[in-house]
């Protein structure tokens, strides 16, 4: 597909420019004889991690549907692991926790592989929702029961159910857009992650007024507005990856970015509650998998259902 080639050439160009800018900034600050400032060290780590993430996504795309499903099953695994680490678990939860990793993740993604949308949509919110507390009750340990069950449910919803809606875009039959589901995934990821990067850039450059000072010191109104406007323009410019017109693409991108912002905010609230700065250390410079995927968690299901309702 010509679009795929253009897309990855474009990404390559963006990353190369980013790396070049970071190198020049590095030269400038070290010429003065100082050590590299921490923002720049972090920026370098982030850009390096982006190269690796883009490489991983490209490889998954090469393998088509199976590759993308496996990639996001792994994202779910890493995200759930980070999430459960921060929750209260007791010895009686061992089997439930194992089931979350060894049963729920494989089943949810297998349903995508065999294209069984009906069960995919209700497996977690109906069957797992009821089975998990039932099994926890059978284990007989009632200490902090409601808290444990709720935390497990949340973990599965965020890390498995919501994230699985990214590869679920492949199952949509959109008239005139057959066989191009991968491009729609690329559109969603590019706009949501692009919005994260642009919010970061606008926040660093112009950020003054904090949106929620109690939750996140790095989220500012300047970053948010600048990020969403620029990411919407980015979405409109990428309309050729989607079944949308440029205007529709811009609106869908704006919606995804706003959802993504809420995702980041909720993730920050959970982290603050648990007294940690990052979810983990899997992706250098970014933190854990959930630090990178939190915006996608909120954006993917909403994006999926709007496309499904209006286009499929």
């Amino acid at each position, binding site marked *: 597909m010509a679009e795929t080639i253009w897309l990855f050439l474009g990404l390559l160009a963006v990353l190369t420019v980013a790396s070049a800018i970071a190198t020049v900034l590095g030269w400038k600050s070290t010429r003065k004889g100082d050590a590299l400032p921490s923002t720049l060290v972090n920026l370098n780590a982030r850009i390096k991690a982006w190269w690796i993430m883009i490489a991983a996504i490209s490889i998954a795309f090469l393998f088509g549907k199976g590759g993308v499903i496996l990639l996001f099953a792994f994202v779910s695994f890493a995200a759930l692991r980070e999430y459960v*680490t921060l929750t209260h678990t007791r010895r009686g939860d061992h089997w439930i926790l194992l089931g979350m990793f060894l049963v729920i993740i494989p089943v949810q993604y297998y349903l995508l592989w065999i294209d069984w949308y009906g069960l995919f949509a209700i497996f977690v919110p109906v069957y797992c929702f009821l089975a998990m507390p039932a099994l926890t009750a059978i284990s007989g340990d009632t200490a902090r029961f409601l808290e444990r069950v709720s935390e497990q449910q949340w973990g599965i919803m965020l890390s498995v159910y919501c994230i699985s809606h990214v590869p679920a875009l492949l199952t949509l039959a959109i008239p005139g857009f057959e066989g191009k589901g991968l491009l729609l995934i690329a559109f969603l990821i590019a706009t949501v992650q692009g919005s994260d990067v642009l919010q970061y850039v606008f926040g660093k450059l112009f950020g003054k007024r904090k949106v929620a000072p109690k939750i996140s010191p790095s989220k500012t109104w300047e970053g948010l507005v600048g990020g969403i406007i620029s990411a919407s323009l980015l979405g409109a410019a990428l309309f050729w990856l989607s079944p949308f017109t440029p205007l529709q693409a811009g609106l869908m991108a704006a919606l995804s970015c706003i959802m993504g912002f809420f995702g980041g905010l909720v993730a920050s609230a959970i982290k603050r509650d648990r007294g940690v700065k990052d979810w*983990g250390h899997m992706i250098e410079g970014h933190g854990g998998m959930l630090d990178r995927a939190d915006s996608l968690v909120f954006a993917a299901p909403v994006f999926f259902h709007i496309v499904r309702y209006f286009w499929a």
Partner: protein
Amino acid sequence: MSAKPLLRRTAAVALAGLARAVTGVRPIWQGCAPSDRQRIYFANHASHGDFILLSACLPPQERERTRAVAGADYWRKNRIRHVLARDILNTVLVDRNWVERKDDPMTIMLDVLKDGHSLIIFPEGTRNMTDESLLRFRSGIYNLALARPDVELIPCWIENMSRVLPKGAFLPVPLLCRVVFGEPVMLGAGEDRHAFLDRSRQALLELNPEHQRALERG
């Protein structure tokens, strides 16, 4: 070269890889750095995975010469356990039952140290199944410190492993783990057994991030 060292080495590499894949374990060298010096690592103990996790955090060379001390009564109970402990995990088995035991655990451990190995010991003497974060220490660690003052005693706090693989469980739940390495503990001049046991226990306890968080809260 006989088959056993090869088997051991393969098993060690495979287990360290598995521990890393499941727990994403990271060493936090808080009070010391990895070094070539002969060491005794002492850690909290709540899971069979503890020593695999700890050794997965060591640099490859150090990992190869480090052996864990384990209870002979448990690991000799049946054939599979015994083969596992002796040939695969390369543990140093010592008898915990001091009334009926034939070999003195101290002699065995000192012999292994004399051969140039580093040791992993769990001074609580058993897996901790209580809500207490750390049990009282047995005397072994004091005797080792007394007999070999030249070997560094490193406290290592193992975080989360008891949730990954609790007692009686066979399959591990993937959760993120860390091992915090603290400052070496040295036996003071004329320090008595009780004082040293308390002090080394406290040194280990202070590496527990939850303990540190509790202190911050006051």
